[in-house]
């Protein structure tokens, strides 16, 4: 358990630094803003209690907000994403997640299910973030297009990062 806590805190610090220092400066053609810090919420263990899930999401959102001058926006979006996470996991579950040593990653979930899981939650996060940021309906389709491009890019980065950083269990 302690091991899990430490590794998740390290991941939090690493992802916030990566987001603030590098990915906040990435802009392809003025449209694509990848928010890769959502990996943190995606990869919290299956058996995390509900309140801790929400509090962690609130905290990571707030940290990103403080560094990118968007007070409350990332917080609201990542909270909503964390709120939807248990429901999405239930839909995609195979019944084996109760085994505590399984983690939500490519190796334990399989490429197809993990990509679907990431895509749905990232869409929820990005759509809510972009609409909160714009805050007006007159730019509905333009905002949707911006969100869509970023969703695809973030999902790509998230899935690729799975192969780059986390190791499968050696059997």
């Amino acid at each position, binding site marked *: 358990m302690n091991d899990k806590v430490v590794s998740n805190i390290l991941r939090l610090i690493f992802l916030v630094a990566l987001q603030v220092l590098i990915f906040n400066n990435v802009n392809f053609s003025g449209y694509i803003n990848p928010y890769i810090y959502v990996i943190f919420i995606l990869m919290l263990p299956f058996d995390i209690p509900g309140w801790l899930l929400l509090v962690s999401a609130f905290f990571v959102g707030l940290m990103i907000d403080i560094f990118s001058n968007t*007070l*409350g926006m990332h*917080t609201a979006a990542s*909270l909503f994403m964390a*709120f939807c996470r248990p429901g999405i996991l239930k839909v995609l579950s195979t019944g084996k997640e109760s085994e505590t040593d399984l983690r939500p990653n490519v190796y334990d979930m399989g490429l197809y299910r993990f990509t679907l899981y990431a895509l749905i939650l990232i869409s929820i996060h990005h759509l809510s973030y972009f609409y*909160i940021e714009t805050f007006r309906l007159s730019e509905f389709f333009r905002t949707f297009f911006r969100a869509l491009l970023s969703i695809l890019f973030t999902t790509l980065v998230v899935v690729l990062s799975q192969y780059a950083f986390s190791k499968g269990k050696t059997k």
Partner: protein
Amino acid sequence: MRNLIIFIGKHHFVLLFIILEIISFSLIINNSFYQQLVFLSATNEMTGKVNNTVSNITGYLNLKETNRQLAEENARLRSSTMSSFIKTSDSIFIINDTLYRQQYRYVEAKVIKNSFNKRNNYLMLNKGSDQGVGKEMAVITSNGIVGIVNEVSKNFSSVMSVLHKDTKISAMIKKNKYKGTIVWNENDYKTGNLIDIEPHVKFAVGDTVITSGNSHIFPEGIFIGTVKSFSIKPGDNFYSIKINFSTDFNRIEYVYVVKNFYKEEQLKLLNTQKNE
């Protein structure tokens, strides 16, 4: 009471979600009010230092371009000094300092954080109240306008970019002095909008747009951009004009913060007007 506790225990996930979501939305809504100012000044010092370090590193990569811009500006300034003019008349000039009093002072600052791809963009500068930067001062580059200072801490300041949904800057078409307002409703950091120009005004694509000097923030005549396209919908009272910004918001590195020495006086007069 017991039922209430059972209810809370049963639905704690949803309840906690709602409470935290309310907190974050109140943060967003209070964004323009006092609470946020207090919060931001406290954190500006901290995040400012982080951003400063990042900017020190990335600054090296842009040295060449920055040098070129500085050299260009130096050349322009040098060509406008007295020594670069040949005296053509022998009549005596009397330079009387009481005729001209300095109204604007320019503080040079470095951009340590810049964003241009969001709906509302901010910049952070490495100068703050200790270096004479204050709220509601104009920020410009040698190429054009950048934004308005919205928050200062001791050594850093935060600038609301022109690329922000709440920024409105008084502007005019240079050749005929008709005044309008610059807003940003585009997704593109290269284009902005000029509104409030009436249908009888004559202008063409490529015309220069400059600041009007109607506000107490921007000096008159700062370059904003050129007209890219314009149209008028039937029934509309105003043109909708797109302009190309002269500032390249992607590559701002050094800026000038403009202090207006007569701002208080202007504002005071404005307030008495309103009161009457």
